[in-house]
């Protein structure tokens, strides 16, 4: 069995509003990523994808607080560590994070090489600039980025190039886990493909050992990651391999997500797009039963009163619904 790179057990984190209310944006999430594997996380806006990404780093700052659970990176538990320690010894080296608008993070007055020097010096001040330049040039070449980019200013690069540069910078220390939060959402399809190719390249060359990829585009996840996890209102509602989660979704919510996919394939035209009605619940006062009950077409009275546990199907596949696959099929047939 492959080595487990990242393991999360029952992680719960909360936001505290200025009125002292607790909002549990990540609610008892457990996941596991093995070496050389990638995990995709999907869901609508506001269901906790990005908060989960932030929580996984173990780097908490108000209003986000750690509540309970464990984050184990390659056998080392980093949950509950002091944020300063995390920043100095974990971020960049063990776990790297690419935020959503990463390309806007580059200081316009600095050359690209400067950011790389910053990252390396934060962890090891003794490395000389010459060594850094050599390392960066080699790394950029391997990743298919022209080394001239190193001497350029951010404004001289196109959007796609900037994004790929940021990714290359953030993995310069070869982290064990890379968390990519919507790395390609602001790009057009061709640049998106280049970004994906580069992420694949990183995994193949072993510059990152495992990856978590967050996006709401299911067709993209299907093509990029090995496993997919669907989140709703802070909870995992479905997880499984990419094929299972996309082609045979069990939870009514993931089914709804599948129906909102638009791809240029024959037979799409004239097909009905089925948007899921309604909005996710307010997590200040989460519903007592199933969190999806208000929007679910298969809802039963029991759904609103009982809290629903994840139903394990074996082989890493699980979903959070009281209906079995057969019951859902039946309900679907009856309209």
């Amino acid at each position, binding site marked *: 069995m492959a080595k487990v790179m990242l393991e999360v057990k029952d992680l719960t984190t909360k936001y505290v509003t200025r009125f002292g209310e607790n909002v549990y944006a990540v609610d008892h999430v457990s996941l596991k990523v093995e070496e050389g594997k990638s995990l995709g996380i999907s869901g*609508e*806006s*506001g269901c906790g994808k990005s908060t989960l990404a932030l929580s996984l780093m173990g780097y908490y700052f108000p209003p986000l607080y750690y509540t309970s659970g464990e984050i184990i990176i390659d056998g080392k538990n980093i949950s509950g560590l002091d944020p300063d320690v995390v920043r100095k010894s974990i971020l960049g080296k063990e776990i790297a994070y690419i935020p959503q608008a990463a390309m806007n993070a580059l200081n316009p007055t600095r050359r690209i090489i400067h950011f790389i020097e910053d990252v390396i010096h934060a962890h090891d001040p003794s490395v000389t600039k010459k060594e850094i330049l050599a390392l960066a040039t080699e790394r950029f070449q391997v990743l298919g980025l022209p080394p001239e980019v190193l001497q350029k200013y951010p404004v001289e690069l*196109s*959007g*796609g190039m900037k994004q790929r540069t940021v990714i290359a910078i953030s993995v310069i220390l070869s982290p064990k886990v890379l968390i990519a939060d919507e790395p390609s959402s602001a*790009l*057009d*399809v*061709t*640049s*998106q*493909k*280049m970004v*994906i*190719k580069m992420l*694949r390249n990183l995994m193949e060359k072993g510059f990152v050992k495992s990856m978590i990829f967050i996006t*709401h*585009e*299911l*067709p*993209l996840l*299907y*093509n*990029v990651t090995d496993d997919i996890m669907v989140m709703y209102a802070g909870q995992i509602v479905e997880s499984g391999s990419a094929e299972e989660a*996309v*082609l045979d979704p069990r939870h009514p919510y993931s089914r*709804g*997500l599948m*129906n*909102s*996919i*638009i*791809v*240029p*394939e*024959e037979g*799409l*035209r004239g097909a009905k*797009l*089925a*948007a*899921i009605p309604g909005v996710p619940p307010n997590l200040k006062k989460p519903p007592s039963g199933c969190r999806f009950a208000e929007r679910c077409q298969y809802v039963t009275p029991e759904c609103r009163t009982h809290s629903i546990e994840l139903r394990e199907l074996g082989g890493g596949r699980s979903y959070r619904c009281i209906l079995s696959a057969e019951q859902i099929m039946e309900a679907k047939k009856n309209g």
Partner: protein
Amino acid sequence: MADERKICLKGSGLTKVYGFGRNQMRAVDHVDFEFHESEIISIVGESGSGKTTLAKMLLGLISSTSGDIYFEGQKRDIRSQKKKQEYWKNIQAIFQDPFSSYNTFNKIDAVLLDCIHMRGGKKLPHEKKLELMSEACSFVNLKFAELTNKYPFELSGGQMQRLMIARIFLLKPKILIADEPTSMIDACSRATILDMLLALRKETGMTLIFITHDIGLAYFVSDSVYIMEQGKFVEKGSADHVILHPQEAYTRRLINDVPKIHEEWDLSTV
């Protein structure tokens, strides 16, 4: 069949050049088009192909370097502010970024009230105006009662985009240009927004022009598709024709680059 319908917007030799001398940049280069009444058109291209520049010229937000735009058979005349406002009653737009589309100092009722006034409803009794506004809000699944006295920035991105559609509902323009209306919101809200736009078109019979890089979306919604590369239309025709049987290498590349479910996604082409 397409020729029987009236042409509502026509462009001939439309060109926009940015910059001077050595730094000249032809953003839109001699494009010709004929958009028919109540047609759904998509203009597809990657970043920097001149889609948004074209949209801005159609809206009269920037002037064209050369070439003409004909609106309902007449050469468009927007030289004075008054004529421009008259023109904007017929053509409206929804932009990519809903956060920067609103005047932050105006409350939401003011935004909607403005639309009623623009349609010449200034003298309507107050109750009638309220009725119109709540009708527009319920069309896009927003509750007007909850929105009064709120500012646009208090809404979420999807809600703002829906409010934008409520504006269009009140204005009832003949042409609506949707410039990447769904690229900043998630896939699920995207379906909602598209449904609303299509329902609105069905009701008002307006011409809908989608500007997008998402070829899947273009295929899904439009009657005819224009593919734009470096300021030029390289391919145009019906959606089925262009997307299922693309002739140009550029179009094929755009289609190939979209991740799909039932077909292999080839990463070696970039």
